[in-house]
């Protein structure tokens, strides 16, 4: 195939690229820029005034309260990523290697669960996690003391909801990279004298890294913005960044603060991703695709 060298002034090229470019500019760059501009304004008597100062940034950086919440958000996101990957990997592995016969049925079930509205599912967890809910009832009936679990309206409850709503992403990304691994590579490792466990760590795990990383990134980014779970299952006892931002905008009608916190959250997310990408890419530069 020949790669065509085209001038950026080529009308056909412009016509094909333009729609996406416009969408990105109008719906992504402009709001982001507007958010950045907002931070330099002030609100008085519930009205925005067009002042140009950086007062709000001094407030953001001087109040530890905001940073506690930001740190908690990142911490929750990291724990959520770890839990999701730990749950998703074995499930994806089983789907890719052991349950081939039922894999379509399993995938359909997972997709159904995934497509069910997140609000419904999250409220569903209340029934299970409630003090008099299904979980405690079951535990009591197998001999544990009554009301043993008290997970609802705690960070643990939030975490359960987040993991439940997000675990599907890494499950599919990991599954996709696992099924792409040539079975012969596994046989070749056995043939060279490797045990099953050794083969997993020498061949399967390294080759499924792309799926593992992309799943982890998806979960991390989405859990930074988790909003529903801390409200419904966390009960507002330990708010996360999204709740703080909502409060700034809605309750306190302090738009500049909300905008600044939004930018802080985006920056934290982007920075974490940049660092993790740098760390994982450094290991193996210029490695070609599988032969």
């Amino acid at each position, binding site marked *: 195939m020949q790669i065509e060298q085209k001038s950026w002034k080529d009308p056909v090229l412009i016509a094909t690229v333009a729609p996406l470019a416009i969408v990105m500019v109008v719906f992504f760059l402009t709001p982001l820029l507007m958010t950045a501009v907002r931070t330099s304004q002030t609100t008085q008597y519930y009205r925005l005034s067009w002042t140009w100062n950086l007062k709000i940034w001094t407030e953001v950086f001087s109040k530890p309260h905001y940073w506690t919440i930001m740190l908690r958000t990142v911490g929750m996101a990291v724990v959520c990523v770890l839990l999701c990957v730990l749950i998703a990997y074995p499930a994806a592995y089983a789907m890719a290697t052991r349950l081939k016969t039922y894999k379509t049925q399993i995938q359909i079930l997972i997709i159904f669960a995934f497509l069910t509205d997140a609000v419904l599912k999250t409220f569903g967890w209340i029934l299970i996690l409630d003090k008099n809910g299904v979980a405690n009832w079951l535990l009591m009936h197998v001999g544990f003391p009554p009301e043993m679990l008290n997970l609802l309206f705690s960070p643990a409850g939030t975490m359960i909801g987040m993991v439940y709503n997000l675990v599907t992403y890494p499950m599919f990304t990991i599954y996709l990279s696992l099924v792409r691994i*040539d079975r*012969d*590579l596994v*046989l*070749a*490792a*056995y*043939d*060279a*004298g*490797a*045990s099953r466990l*050794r083969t997993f760590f*020498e*061949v399967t795990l*390294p*080759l499924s890294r792309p799926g593992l990383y992309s799943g982890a990134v998806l979960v991390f980014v989405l859990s930074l913005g988790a909003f529903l779970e801390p409200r419904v299952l966390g009960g507002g006892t330990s708010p996360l960044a999204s709740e703080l931002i909502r409060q700034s905008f809605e309750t306190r009608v302090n738009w500049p603060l909300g905008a600044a916190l939004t930018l802080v959250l985006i920056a934290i997310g982007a920075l974490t991703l940049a660092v993790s990408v740098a760390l994982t890419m450094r290991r*193996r530069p*210029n*490695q*070609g*695709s*599988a*032969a």
Partner: protein
Amino acid sequence: MVGPIIDAADIVKDYGSARALHGVSLEVGAGEFLALVGPSGCGKTTLLKILAGFEEPTGGRLEIQGKDMRGVPAANRPTRMVFQKLALFPHKTVAENIGFPLKLQKVEKSESDSRVRAMLDLMHLKPEYLDRYPAQLSGGEQQRVALARALVSQPGVLLLDEPMSALDAKLKKSLQAELKKLHREIGTSFVLVTHDLEEAMMLADRICVMRSGHVVQIGTPADIYYRPANMFVAGFIGETNFLPVTATKTAAGATVTSALIPGASAEIPAEHVSPALSAAGTALLVRPESTRFVKGDATSGEWVLDGEVEEYFIKGASTQYRIRVAGLPAAVVMDLPGSIVLPARVGEKVRVGFQPAHAFLLSE
């Protein structure tokens, strides 16, 4: 000679209700180069996988180096495999790929490095390749890395699963020559699976021809070519002619007559009669190179068929003719030495002669 390095007896393999191998028995001597040949689906790859330990046989006995291999996983067998698609680890460098079996054996780093180097020299790979990834090498180089990885731990048997089927013709030829040289140099037993009987004849000491889960014939390349067990084996290598005949066994061999040549009968010596001769579908195997055009009188004992030239192909050193003969289902193929003046043109009436006593008598 010490006992065989591989001793397989009555190997049966079922996949569900389908039987892939019907009691295959095979011996491979130490240092021998054996080729498993057959059309696709004949069970040759299944047999190789059973030898390697990737598949468990449903029945039968398998011993490698005198040890029963039942329940022994691939990792603990003295066999190493070169895969059809090579199966080099894409995330490991050439050095890591070749050194992988040594790493698993916990060979000391310095010794492992020197053995990887030695393999690199043996395979004529450049030392700067050590830090490259398989995807950065050419097809032929990847092939050598795969061979190096399989041989670095000095296995008792090297199993090769059509490793050259994906290469272009020229590269294939040079790698075949290298493989044969390698086998002579290191003295390891090789078992090569291939669907290409020509490749098998070039490389192997012995050939095992398989068909739908049965071994049809095991023998030296000369045996397979000149003394094929049946028409299947004979037809597997190149183009040949089969002349249907009626045969009666005699003390000295067999007497044959053909409906196409009334009144003629010929004595076939015993060494030209297939040991597996049966009554059904007996035929004379006439190699294209042992035919000639008869202009004038036939020599004594020669059988002559009347026909018409259907097509000819000039191959340089030889010219191939296809002659349509009334009463024969397929055209008679003749390989004649090349000449400046063509002996016959398309449509010309010709007489094809051959010595039945030099032909080989076999059955379906």
